[in-house]
């Protein structure tokens, strides 16, 4: 049985008598420790898939099973790294991670252990130097690193990342991608990442889930990326497997499932 499985997941939003089907028949099985990216044009409902797995949205049809148990509410076993970091601006970096750790690991770890665990996770993303700063005093890349530390500190079964590097400049993004790969390699987390960046998807993922365009979007194709880890972006630039995977995703997105507005 799969670690995490989505079966026949669909969602329809109702607003003022009108209803629009955003997702239909999404089926996906994810193994433990696997890194899966979901890619698609904006508005195709890829973030909606993530929110359903997170429990922040309820599927209209079908359901999600995590280790055989149905997902029907948000929880720390499916920690989310939000697109816009979502740090609480009135708390320092340490307090932001601490809020999650103290709530989630209460009873599992003593106060001293929790405080050590907060430091450990900040160190994991190299943020110890700014632990006492507030979010508005640090850069966008640093905020996202704190968001990752907060999510990892919850010891999630599945880590959900919603376009985690979308708002960052190219250099910071590359740096954080490398860091994410390295951490995932070390902790063997199961990760679902939403992205619209083809290179990011190919570089980080074991499998790339490509979504068709909405309305009624669904999974168009799943592409395995059989590249050995650890992966180094420089080595991969001319790697045949990498180039081939990249071409396949591009072909899916821009030839077969080009966004109607863009194609016109």
């Amino acid at each position, binding site marked *: 049985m799969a670690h995490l499985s989505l079966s026949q997941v669909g969602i329809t939003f109702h607003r003022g008598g009108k209803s629009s089907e955003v997702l239909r028949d999404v089926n996906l099985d994810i193994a433990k420790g696997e890194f899966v990216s979901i890619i698609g044009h904006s508005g195709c409902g890829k973030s909606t898939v993530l929110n359903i797995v997170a429990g*922040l949205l309820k599927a209209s049809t079908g359901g999600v099973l995590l280790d055989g148990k149905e997902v029907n509410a948000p929880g720390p076993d499916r920690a989310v790294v939000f697109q816009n970091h*979502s740090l609480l601006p009135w708390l320092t970096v340490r307090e932001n991670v601490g809020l999650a750790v103290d709530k989630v690991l209460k009873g599992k770890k003593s106060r001293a252990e929790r405080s050590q665990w907060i430091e450990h996770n900040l160190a994991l993303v190299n943020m110890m130097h700014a632990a006492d700063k507030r979010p508005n005093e640090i850069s966008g890349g640093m905020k996202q690193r704190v968001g990752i530390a907060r999510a990892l500190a*919850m010891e999630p079964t599945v880590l959900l990342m919603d376009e985690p590097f979308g708002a960052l400049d190219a250099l910071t993004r590359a740096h954080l991608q490398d860091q994410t790969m390295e951490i995932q390699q070390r902790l063997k987390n199961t990760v679902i990442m939403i992205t619209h960046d083809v290179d990011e998807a190919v570089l980080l993922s074991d499998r790339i889930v490509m979504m068709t365009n909405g309305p009624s979007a669904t999974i168009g194709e799943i592409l395995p990326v059989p590249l050995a880890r650890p992966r180094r972006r420089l080595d991969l630039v001319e790697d045949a497997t990498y180039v081939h995977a990249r071409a396949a995703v591009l072909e899916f997105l821009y030839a077969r499932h080009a966004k109607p507005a863009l194609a016109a």
Partner: protein
Amino acid sequence: MATGATLTAARERTAAKARAPFITLAGLRGVAARVLPPLIVLAGFLLLWEVLCSSPTAGLPPPSRVVSEAWDIIIDPFYDNGGTDKGLFWHIAASLKRVALGFSLAVVAGVMLGTLVGQSDWAMRGLDPIFQILRTIPPLAWLPLSLAAFRDGQPSAIFVIFITSIWPIIINTAVGIRNIPQDYRNVAAVIRLNPIEFFVKIMLPSAAPYIFTGLRIGVGLSWLAIVAAEMLIGGVGIGFFIWDAWNSSHISEIIVALVYVGLIGFVLDRLVAGLGVLVTRGTSAA
């Protein structure tokens, strides 16, 4: 090595000497630029007043006569001859006590009701129209009703303060709660904060800038209301003091009391505003 250190030190000393007077001068200039205009305007205003009211037939005393007539209450605000014959300090303290009590009750009830209205659509639809009507009732219109209910001046005055200052607190808190970003709610959902933790750790800090706007309006309104309410209920209090002075035709004492009322109102406003800045340091910059 030693010479180098001495040289550096000497250079620093010279630089400091050269810099120090310049900074002081600029600082002085800055202070003067802010302090002088209000002082000049105040002096001009007092002069105008003096001129306008200097004729013996004038209805109001000029500032010079205000000071000479009311000199004993100006220099000794702490006397206490028993009953309501007390110095200004005691009257103001009594008024502030009523405001503190009524306003504190309004803060607690206002933030709770505001949270309810901000959080629940049903409560919003049910309560908002009622609030919108009740909040337009002038503070003093509540006084007879509260006298009838409490049968005593003291709790009635506190109730008037409460009912006057609660509306801006409720309305601003509700807006603040409605404006909590969905992101913060998602974070709270993922780490499974319970409702009380959510209220304390997410709602209050996130809505704090709005809440403090409400508090600032509320404290201003309650200071407005207390003076009027005390004129009617009597007893010790700055409102009664003014009314009593009018009944004994001590116009100069009224003017001195008004200066105090204005200054205290200003201080109250600044206190709440300052507290707001302190508490919302992180939030408002988000």
